[in-house]
């Protein structure tokens, strides 16, 4: 084997070795790394113009609170989102309730209780204003554009 082929084989061995080690290292933190490399999921929750955000929220709720009655409240004012949310309701007909923005925030707790919802998933536009929930709701998780809250018992 001549000098050039040896050089190529050595370069190939180094390349494969380095890449496999780097790849394994990157992927060792599996969920963490993928969490970092999947910004689109978080962006999807927080992106004000994404028309499918309602679906994403429901799917998220599906993972966070399987089988729990979650009411989705969309106060963002995005027409596309409201449309998608309405359709998402069609996809999850048994477990999901759709809360119209008109009831936010004054009567939302009574509205949720009346429909058997134990949780609210609220989506709004990203603003600098502090996120205040009305009495009767306890924040569980939140991002700049949405909050998951538990509805207090009567």
């Amino acid at each position: 084997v001549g000098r050039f082929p040896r050089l190529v084989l050595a370069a190939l061995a180094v390349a494969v070795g380095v890449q496999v080690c780097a790849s394994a290292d990157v992927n060792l933190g599996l969920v963490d790394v993928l969490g970092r490399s999947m910004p689109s999921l978080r962006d999807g929750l927080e992106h004000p113009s994404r028309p499918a955000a309602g679906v994403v929220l429901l799917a998220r709720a599906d993972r966070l609170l399987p089988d729990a009655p979650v009411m989705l409240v969309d106060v963002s004012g995005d027409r596309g989102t409201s449309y998608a949310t309405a359709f998402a309701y069609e996809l999850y007909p048994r477990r999901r309730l759709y809360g119209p923005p008109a009831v936010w925030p004054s009567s939302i707790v009574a509205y949720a209780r009346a429909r058997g919802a134990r949780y609210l998933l609220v989506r709004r536009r990203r603003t600098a204003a502090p996120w205040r929930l009305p009495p009767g709701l306890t924040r569980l998780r939140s991002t700049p554009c949405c909050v998951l809250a538990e509805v207090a018992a009567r």
Partner: protein
Amino acid sequence: VTTVVQLAGVAALAAVGWPLVGALAAGARGLVERVSLAIWLGYAPLTLTLFLVGLVVPYGRATAILCVLVAAGATVLVRVRLGATADVPAPMAADALVSPRADRLIALAAGAATLVLLAQPVVLAVRGLPVAYDFYAIWGFDAKVFFVRGTPAFVHGFNHAYYPAAAPFHHLFLDLLAGRASSGLQLLPSALEFAALVGVTRYLARRLGAPPALGSLVGLLVCAGASATIFSALSGYGDLPLTAGLTVAAGAGVIWLRGDDRALLLSAAGAALAAWSKFEGLPSVLLVLAAVLAGAHALGRGELRRAAATWLAVVAAAIVPWWAFVASEGVGGGREHVSRLYLEPGFILSNVGRVLVRPGDFALWWPLMLGLLALTAPAWWRAGAATRTLVLLTLAELVAVLSAYVVSSHAGSVQDVRATAPRLYVHWMPTVALAVACGVAAAVRAPREPPGRTN
């Protein structure tokens, strides 16, 4: 029950594609290689059948099973009509990368490392990793819509409903088998299909003349792309079938240049899958066709028009029904992706380049592979028109992806380039790995071979 359904879904793909392996993939050896090819050759026929049958028969579990039978019947007919492929001689000991013994050790080590890396997506799939945004919003959403409505009916005004729909129909098939629409059902099948892509790449590497040990290294490189690869494998987007389709289209196209006539149809089958998988699939495979025809012209092959017509007919059969359906539904056609010219090459280059060297996405994959291609350039350039075509085609496709940002509505946003570039470049990783294999093989063989050998 869920795992049984997931495995049954992958088995159905393999059953549909199995007859095509015998008809199109000359020299496929061993169960793993044949099953890998069968899974990806069955993907387009089964999902297309599900789409077309759904236009007349309401969706249900029985419809899914009916579609498997119809698609398998069609592929058996193709196998009967074409007959078996010609024999391809096994590689000889003299064709070793280093020496027969060292090659066996390299292949063993590479195979073990490949299994370890492939275990990662499988473990993540079993754990039910959070699925990405576009799965909920587009690829998985379409499947849910079709499942709930019992027919391929769109939600008008929704995100990109016109996208080529191989992946949504794949997910729908699993939903129908399970009897419920579930966001996580596609994870394990996707992980196994990704493993099949590694098997397909190894087959193509061997047929392109790489010694078996080098083929094993190529398989390892395909699954060693850090988180970008795993994301592409598990996301449920159209990227995984697109990657498989492009790899087969380019690899088999060059095998055709090396004298295997049946490989033209294999290339067309890959191109059909790519065009049926994602919006960018069709322009990408047309570039593949142009490059392969240019290579054939350089090699003095005849009947190029007939070859091109056959290839295009197979691709058209896969995508034209969908276009017709999309047009009849009036759900748009992708104009939102194209903007006025964005002539900021510096911005595009720096942002895309930054993505390609981001450790969390690809680790060092792109600098290392492009470095190997540069190092072996004198060897692959002199190795003949077929090898040269593969490498130049690959580089042209990488530049084409970059150029697409000039007309893309995403080009001006750092965040959008960050979100799209990893996905777009993942599509070409197996083909780049094949090109590297050809370059290395040419460099190692050059001193052993008499001058004047072509392709």
